């Protein structure tokens, strides 16, 4: 007789996904890892996990491609299928939590691409009710910005920002996907006020970026893996829309707490000047 499937619902970015497994220890891992993002909402999607022997996460490149109506998602440490028509999928992987995170991130990136959103290599935080994003290559200062944040700042993530279109532009959501900080973000959301591309330097300053440069930098930092013409076209359209609706700047910063004064100053000045004056 087959063992009974046990289910937890994990809701990231307002998208509840049911994760099911027969393995009690893996279920505990799911509950611990996504504590703060567990939900009683009715799941929109389902993933059933079938565990292989325990092993490390893989450094192989991930492949995400269509196989008929399904998405086939493969890396050395996992093999997943997901049918966007039914919303159901299966994952064969070891019990490594990093493999689990990767599968979930890829699934969210596919769902978001269809809905005009995306995952971005960026730290994000809520300051005075508005979300600020800090993106850049590894070592640019994403985690540093979150470490320097004053106590009244709400951390959404220090690694992977979750963005969806909203009535007034875009909204950022907290994610459990942590970087060097090794701490999940808060499960909350706020309208995006600005995206800063980080560079470290001798002083704090904010500079304009051309629209083309902003799109170029944005595309470089969006998490997207699918080999699919339709989704790529949607993603590029989304990136151009984001650049048109959200202020994007280069933030050169000296790594001390005063950089957050610069962020607040930018926010004050920007709110005082009509965006499309």
């Amino acid at each position, binding site marked *: 007789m087959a063992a009974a499937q046990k289910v937890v619902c994990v809701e990231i970015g307002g998208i509840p996904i049911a994760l099911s497994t027969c393995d009690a220890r893996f279920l505990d891992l799911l509950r611990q890892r996504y504590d703060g993002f567990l939900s009683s909402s009715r799941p929109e999607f389902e993933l059933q996990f079938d565990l292989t022997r325990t092993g490390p996460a893989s450094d192989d490149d991930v492949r995400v491609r269509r196989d008929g109506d399904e998405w086939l998602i493969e890396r050395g440490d996992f093999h997943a299928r997901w049918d966007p028509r039914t919303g159901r999928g299966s994952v064969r992987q070891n019990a490594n939590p990093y493999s689990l995170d990767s599968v979930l991130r890829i699934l969210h990136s596919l769902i978001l691409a269809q809905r005009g959103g995306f995952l971005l290599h960026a730290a994000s935080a809520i300051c005075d009710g508005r979300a600020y994003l800090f993106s850049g290559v590894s070592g640019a200062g994403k985690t540093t910005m979150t470490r320097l944040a004053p106590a009244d700042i709400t951390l959404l993530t220090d690694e992977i920002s979750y963005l969806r279109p909203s009535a007034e532009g875009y909204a950022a959501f907290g994610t459990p996907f942590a970087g060097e900080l090794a701490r999940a973000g808060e499960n909350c959301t706020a309208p995006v006020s600005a995206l800063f591309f980080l560079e470290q330097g001798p002083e704090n300053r904010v500079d304009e970026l051309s629209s*083309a440069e902003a799109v170029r930098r944005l595309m470089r930092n969006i998490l997207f893996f699918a080999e699919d013409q339709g*989704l*790529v076209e949607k993603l*590029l359209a989304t990136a151009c829309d984001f650049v048109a609706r959200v202020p994007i700047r280069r933030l050169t910063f000296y790594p001390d707490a005063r950089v957050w004064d610069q962020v607040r100053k930018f926010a004050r000045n920007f709110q005082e000047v009509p965006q499309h004056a």
Partner: protein
Amino acid sequence: MPENCIYIARSSAIAARALAGEMMVMNSADSTFFTLNEVATAIFQAADGRTPLRDIVRDQVCEQFDVDPDEAHADAEQFVAELSSHGILLVSSQPLSSEAP
């Protein structure tokens, strides 16, 4: 291959959008991303598979951007070779049907 019989066409496996005078091009096969300047954009947009590259350079580049023809041809060939190596442009000695949507 003599340069006067090079034909170029845009691949169907790309997404492209014009923004602020530059063309953003993304290859859906490997997610590589390119931005093209005004001159490159003019060549890219004229890559219909039927017009020889030399005619594109003469009509779209030399006339519009006031550049030396020899230099323009050399730059265009280099640009075409680079984009074709990334699967953005298709190159042939015969006319091609443009794959662009």
